[in-house]
């Protein structure tokens, strides 16, 4: 290494800054800073904010959908339980009602039967009375006719006629 190089080295001490470069460095840095602050950083931040919002919005939407689904499920379950309960109630009611109807029908039938029986009895009784009545008249007449024929005397006298008939019938009943 020669003397000249050493001299040159001393002149170019790398730790001593050049004024021009200090100024250029400062200006360049400030320029870049202004560009970054006004153009780049806000845009990146905007993108980040939009992304966060989109992700959060999506998550909120999903959460809402899930909540809705859960709500619907609860509702349906409740409705199903209600329906089941209702069906059970209807079945129970129907059973009770059926029993009541059967009971009612039975009562009605019994009543009807009783009524028919009573009616029949009454009718039979009436007919019997009628028969007795007509029989009595007829028997009376026949007997009178027969007696008159036998006796040969007209039993016109009403009082005697009927007394005789009554006595005859009484005898008839007694013998029964």
């Amino acid at each position, binding site marked *: 290494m020669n003397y000249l190089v050493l001299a040159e080295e001393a002149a170019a001490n790398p730790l001593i800054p050049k004024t*021009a470069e200090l100024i*250029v460095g400062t200006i360049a840095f400030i320029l*870049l800073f202004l560009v970054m602050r006004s153009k780049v*950083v806000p845009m990146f931040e905007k*993108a980040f904010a939009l992304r966060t919002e989109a992700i959060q919005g999506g998550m909120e939407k999903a959460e809402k959908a899930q909540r809705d689904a859960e709500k619907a499920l609860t509702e349906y379950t409740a409705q199903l339980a209600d329906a089941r309960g209702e069906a059970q109630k209807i079945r129970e009611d129907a059973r009770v009602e059926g029993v009541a109807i059967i009971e009612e029908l039975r009562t009605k039938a019994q009543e009807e039967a009783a009524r028919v029986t009573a009616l029949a009895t009454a009718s039979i009784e009436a007919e019997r009375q009628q028969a007795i009545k007509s029989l009595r008249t007829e028997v009376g007449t026949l007997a009178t006719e027969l007696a008159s024929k036998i006796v040969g005397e007209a039993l016109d006298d009403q009082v005697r006629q009927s007394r005789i008939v009554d006595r005859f019938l009484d005898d008839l009943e007694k013998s029964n």
Partner: protein
Amino acid sequence: MSQLAVESGPGFVPPSTADFNLPSVFGNSAYLTKPVFLVFLSIIVISIFFIAASRKASVVPGKLQFSGEMIYGFVRNNIGEEIIGHEFMRFVPFLFTLFSFVLVNNVFGIVPFLQFPAMSHVAFPYVLALFSFFIFHYVGIKKQGLGKYLKGIAFMPGVPKAVYILLTPIEIATFFLVRPLTLSLRLFANMFAGHLLLLVFITGGDYMLNDSHLFMKILSPFSFAMGIGMSFFELMVQCLQAYIITLLTALFIAGALADEH
């Protein structure tokens, strides 16, 4: 660089700090040098890339937006939010600018045809460290008030009084000298050394290839291969340094925001 080696006559002249003293591209102006152009190129490239990436701000990002968001999200979440905490959003534009500015300028060191890390010129790291320095002190003063902030630095609470004799000068030096200096010098030295390392292998390979001995010519590919390998290593260092300067700045800000550091 190869010209330098060839012109220096016989014997290999290793690259030196003088190699960082690039001449003006046009005329003799100190403002028309390669580092200056690279720095402006870097802010143009960064601006175009991130404006294009963030322009649509769509919920479902395309490839471009996704890659932009990855870098932005890394600075925003992994550095900003994780270290500064709930007030981090105020500092994200600064941290993001710092990170991308340093990263791209560093990586320019191995981009073909550019191949020069502007951060190996100490002026740029100084500027960045000064921004960092002013911001974290400003934040601390605004948050705690000048008196309380300075007292917190000079007299760390919960320490026996006698210890202040030692601690106070150390703390003051740390906050007002060591922090900005280490912040800038770490970045500068890494880029400087990395570039020098690449120069050694590439100019060395070049020298060997142009040597009259056949043996040297045959060995020259090894030097180039080392140069290529070192380029990948440098890429790692370049990314790491961009991360570190941003991380430390965030740590300083977080410290200033905390009531007791």
